């Protein structure tokens, strides 16, 4: 018998604008010792479905319309809150997406680990502490004895996620629900955490529900894959079935969105547009302390019309390089030549003139648009500032940009909050292209987006960079995406370039150990080969 058997679960949200069916009659089951992955983009109802099982969906506005969820013979949907509370954290535990916000910053991790144990079971503090130490060791925290009394900020993101997993496992649950547990992490860390979850699941013989927006992430660990779209399940199958012969068009679309190819070599003469020489960007930490060497003695060229990929994990200085070139952060030493002019020496009017020629697309389309400016204002600003359009012609210029980036003209008076992530990124791209730049820095432009949207935005960027004849620095932690888009790739580690080459060179003949490690971390790499 299945550990958890969900039948015809339906959840809806009642708002002033009507009833929204978040989950519309879904059925799936989880076996002991197996991982069931629920895949879908944001708004597909994948999280709501799982949260409603534990009574974690606020009601109202939420409402369970029907169905049942048998967990060890008991229907979770019919349990009282007090009974549910006994199950939550003891029989069913959860791991959340963001390990930064899920730990209380004012409590040592030891205390936080012991809390669920002391709450759910009759144990002494000493016993609970011993158990916490055991678990920390099990999830791969080095030297638990000395770190158990540390505070969360003393751990890195990956380590915090390990602590979260330990906390979820401390009561020996039978079912673990992991809600995008690796989305906020670097690729290399993501690979480690995925491996850890699979190992623990296997060793402890528990059931796991793994929620993700990314099929590739679960490619190596899931036993059963459930694909959701708009509150309904479009396809269920085992891993082989889904990846080898997906039947539903949506699943096929998701699979197609995983970039697996590399960009064909670019013909033509190599004439450098950007020359970066011995660039150093250090951040002062105050008097008497060593500065953070975010970028340390980096040199490279970007040829006209070329897309250069910059890859590395967080803290590798990849974003800082982009910002240094654009003079958004002060450069400590070194030279950045743009078409022969040294950018680091420019000031005032000269700098403004150069800014017109180079633009940036930011990672987070929710933060990179002024929330109080309509699409019109956002796009009109650069057009007017650099005298590209006059007051009379600016409206036409704005509409032309909206056409170019694929935004419906009717949206011109809307504010950023009225758009989805993908649409916002289109606005941001439009703003960057408004000045007709020759050079664009794209800083993780798709990493905040759903996989299918990601593919659309990448297509758009490729198409626009051809139309506008752009030279691009494409910064990303995702090697697969970079390989798909870039002519050449630089691999960055701790502020320094460790390797460079074309996508195929790096993928087939990585020279450095770090590059190999990065390659091995690409989720679903078994599919790429």
């Amino acid at each position: 018998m299945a550990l958890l058997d969900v039948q015809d679960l339906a959840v809806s949200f009642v708002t002033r604008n009507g009833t929204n069916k978040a989950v519309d009659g879904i059925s799936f089951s989880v076996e002991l010792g197996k991982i069931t992955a629920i895949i879908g983009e944001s708004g597909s109802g994948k999280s709501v479905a799982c949260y409603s099982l534990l009574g974690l969906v606020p009601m109202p506005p939420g409402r369970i319309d029907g169905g049942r969820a048998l967990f060890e013979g008991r229907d979770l949907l019919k349990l009282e809150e007090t009974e549910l509370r006994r199950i939550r954290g003891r029989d069913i535990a959860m791991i959340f997406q963001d390990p930064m916000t899920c730990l209380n910053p004012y409590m040592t991790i030891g205390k936080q680990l012991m809390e669920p144990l002391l709450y759910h079971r009759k144990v002494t503090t000493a016993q609970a502490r011993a158990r916490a130490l055991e678990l920390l060791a099990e999830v791969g925290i080095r030297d638990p004895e000395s770190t158990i009394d540390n505070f969360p900020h003393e751990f890195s993101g990956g380590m915090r996620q390990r602590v979260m997993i330990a906390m979820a496992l401390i009561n020996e649950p039978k079912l673990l629900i992991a809600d995008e547990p690796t989305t906020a992490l670097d690729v290399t860390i993501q690979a480690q955490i995925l491996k850890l979850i699979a190992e623990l699941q296997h060793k402890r013989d528990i059931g796991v529900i793994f929620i993700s927006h990314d099929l590739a992430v679960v490619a190596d660990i899931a036993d059963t894959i459930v694909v959701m779209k708009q509150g309904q399940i479009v396809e269920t199958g085992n891993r082989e079935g889904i990846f080898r012969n997906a039947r539903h068009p949506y699943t096929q679309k998701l699979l197609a969105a995983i970039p697996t190819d590399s960009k064909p070599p670019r013909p033509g003469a190599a004439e450098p547009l950007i020359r970066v020489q011995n660039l150093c960007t250090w951040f002062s930490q105050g008097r008497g302390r060593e500065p953070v060497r975010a970028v340390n003695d980096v040199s490279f060229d970007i040829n006209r019309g070329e897309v250069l990929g910059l890859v590395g994990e967080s803290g590798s200085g990849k974003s800082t390089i982009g910002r240094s070139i654009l003079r958004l952060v002060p450069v400590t030493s070194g030279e950045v030549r743009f078409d022969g002019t040294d950018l680091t020496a420019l000031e005032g009017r000269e700098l403004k003139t150069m800014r017109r020629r180079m633009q940036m697309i930011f990672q987070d389309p929710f933060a990179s648009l002024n929330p109080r400016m309509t699409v019109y204002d956002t796009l009109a600003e650069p057009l007017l500032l650099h005298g590209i359009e006059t007051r009379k012609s600016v409206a036409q210029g704005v509409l032309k940009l909206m056409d170019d980036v694929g935004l419906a003209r009717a949206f011109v008076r809307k504010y950023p909050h009225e758009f989805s992530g993908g649409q916002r990124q289109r606005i941001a791209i439009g703003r960057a292209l408004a000045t007709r730049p020759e050079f664009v820095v794209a800083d993780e432009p798709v990493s905040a987006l759903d996989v299918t949207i990601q593919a659309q935005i990448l297509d758009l960027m490729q198409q626009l960079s051809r139309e506008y004849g752009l030279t691009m620095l494409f910064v990303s932690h995702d090697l697969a995406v970079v390989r798909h888009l870039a002519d050449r790739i630089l691999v960055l580690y701790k502020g320094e370039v460790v390797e460079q080459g074309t996508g195929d060179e790096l993928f087939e003949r990585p020279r450095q150990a770090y590059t190999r490690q990065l390659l091995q971390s690409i989720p679903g790499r078994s599919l790429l080969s």
Partner: protein
Amino acid sequence: MNARAIDDIARAEQGTSLWKDAWLRLRKNHLAVFGLVILALFVIIALLTPWIAPYSYQAQDLELGASGPSAAHWLGTDIFGRDLMTQIMYGGRISLAVGFVATAVALLIGVTWGAIAGYVGGRTDAVMMRLVDILYALPFMIFIVLLTVVFGRNMLLLFLAIGAVEWLTMARIMRGQVQSLRQQEFVEAAISLGLSPATLIRRHLVPNALGPIIVYTTLTIPNVMLLEAFLSFLGLGIQPPQTSWGLLISYGAETMEEYPWLLIFPGVALTLTLFSLNFLGDGLRDALDVRGAKD
């Protein structure tokens, strides 16, 4: 160009400014509109007072003395037999002027100061904010007394003195707002477009910091009016026969057992103004917050 394209352009051109949108939203908020209408009415009356007041503000009828509301004196008279309605109308001129002018001064200095300090940061910020701290530490009364001693007593000085004290908090609020906004990517985006710092602050930072500023402004105006009453009461502000709502209320309070209307009517005028300001302030804050917009 076909008709459709022209239509699109027309739509793009018309009213895309934050303020126009805010005004459209404000109009739907009945309380805010009520506040606006009352305030506008008071301001108009204040401006026209010399022509529409029923009596001269110096006219006394000592034989009549304090009398309740009557046909000749709608709101009654004070102990010197002066018409209370005339007094309230003239007092409103002073009170509203102090309230609006001093707050405007505070708003202008405070927002500019705080925005610059928050945006530039570093040493500039430290120096600017320490200056604010020093002014905070200066006892307000001594400051005013000093000013009146040096410059003599006049109305303009009173406005400036009050404004000069009230801007300190405004600057602090603004600086905090700007500091957190400064971290956001849209500010970086604006820098990389080549915007000058002044334009950036004006177009991108100030509109996003307005919420708390507006709420604080609506709290400042009544504060300033009461401050004026306090100063006048001490003899540092307005002197009889000139009057203000604050003064009328403090005189009314002295005689409230025998002649309650001398307290009630000026009190009603002040309260109405304060209510209207609060309604308008809340409405403005909601109207300027495009995210909260339901339409």
